[in-house]
């Protein structure tokens, strides 16, 4: 489903965002991307939605080779990938309902159908009672839920969550992670970038660790290597 093949990214400033990263994520998998600030987590997300292009290597998402993806196909790709951005990127002059409605509007879905879908998603993330509020009227956890609802409303194949628990208290953070886990169980591939070691350890999911743009540890690869050793 997702494949990064020897991907490097050097920014215009000369700094290296990623260096020779190879990573594959299967359908319906839940993967944690961990690492300190500047380790390349967000760069991977930006590559996956073709916000940026790699300097070297290939990125494949859902059989789309993003290096060769024509510009007019980028909106199609982005409709298949829901993203919870680190800074949420909610529109503050629109209500929760309107924010969640936005991807459906952009896709040209008719209002009645879209309204039904939005209400369904808002119920799922527990925000139905806040649908007419503006983002400024919501708590941190509620804002995260609104961003998750917007990311999910088009029923994407993949959900990318960039530090969704970053500024939240432990209880709310667990609620958000539980929500993402439920979404994953319904069949959506989830990649979550996180600093929260407590959550990463306790969830028991695959963990990919990055440092200064390099992939330094991948739990699945470690497991595979251990299995290979046992076989020998």
């Amino acid at each position: 489903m997702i494949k990064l093949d020897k991907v490097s990214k050097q920014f215009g400033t000369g700094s290296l965002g990623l260096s020779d990263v190879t990573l594959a994520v299967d359908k319906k998998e839940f993967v944690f991307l961990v690492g300190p600030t500047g380790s390349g987590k967000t760069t991977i997300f930006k590559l996956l939605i073709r916000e940026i292009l790699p300097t070297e290597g290939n990125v494949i998402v859902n059989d789309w080779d993003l290096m060769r993806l024509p510009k007019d196909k980028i909106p199609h790709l982005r409709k298949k990938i829901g993203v919870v951005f680190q800074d949420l990127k909610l529109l503050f002059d629109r209500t929760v309902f309107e924010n969640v409605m936005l991807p459906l509007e952009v896709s040209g879905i008719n209002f009645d159908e879209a309204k039904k879908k939005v209400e369904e998603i808002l119920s799922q993330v527990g925000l139905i009672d806040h649908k007419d509020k503006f983002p400024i009227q919501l708590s941190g956890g509620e804002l995260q839920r609104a961003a998750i609802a917007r990311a999910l409303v088009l029923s994407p194949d993949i959900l990318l969550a960039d530090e969704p628990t970053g500024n939240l208290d432990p209880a709310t953070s667990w609620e958000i992670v539980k929500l993402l886990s439920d979404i994953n169980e319904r069949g959506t591939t989830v990649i979550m970038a996180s600093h929260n070691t407590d959550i990463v350890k306790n969830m028991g999911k695959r963990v990919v660790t990055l440092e200064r743009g390099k992939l330094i540890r991948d739990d699945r690869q470690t497991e595979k290597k251990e299995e290979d050793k046992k076989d020998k």
Partner: protein
Amino acid sequence: MKSFKTMWRNVRRSPYQALAAVLIMMLTFLVVSFFTFLLTGSSKIINFFESKPQVTAFFKNEAKQSEMDTLSGRIKESGKASSIKFVSKKEALEIYRQQNKDDPLLLDLVTADILPASLEISAVRIEDLSGISDLLKSSPIVEEVIFQKDIVSTLVSWTNAARRIGIALIVVLSLVSIFIMITIIGIKISHRKEDIEIMKLIGASDWYIRWPFIFEGIFYGIIGALIGWGIASLSLWYSAPFLSSFLKGIPLFPVSIVFLLVVLGGELIFAIILGFLSSFLAVLRYLK
């Protein structure tokens, strides 16, 4: 439909910019309307003069009817005259009486004997006037030739000058409108840069983002044209009594509603083109 809603929201959220855009468009279309009225009116006035008997030849008292008929026949044969009307001494007196019916003193002094018979000739083309005039002057029975060539020529040169000034003014104002609209829509795009970035990240196509701005440009053009045309039409209607007394005898008024609607239709098409062009240029410049 969604693009129209977004456009309307953009208009409402920055009313002063919207007002500036509408005002510059209005100014352009006000000038377009005034010059259209002016040039159409001038052309009608010229047509009126051209279709009127433009050469009048007054015969000498001793001229015989047969000589006058021969001269009239020669002019007809030249093919330069569209109509020839003979006014006898009696008919001239009748016309004189009609024109001066309110002044009995003038009526008492004049008899048919002092008034000359005349020929009133309309030219097919204005350029033929000199030829007809020369022909008449060369005849020994003609006392005097009066023709309005000079008036019409002056009118034609004034109209041509007005047309040139009008076209230059409209071109300059259209360019000013385009540049101001590009700036206004550019500012709006810059204000919404973050929203646009978010929409792109969640899968909006380039045209989904561009259309509301393009509709906005067209909207300002249409509103500006409607107001400009409205003001010009009202001014025309208001000044109609004064103008019709000033241009007595020239059938310019009342101005036909069909003519006004045709002008409006043309201006709306021009407004749509102008609005589309300026917003499209803004979108190309600011939404890369």
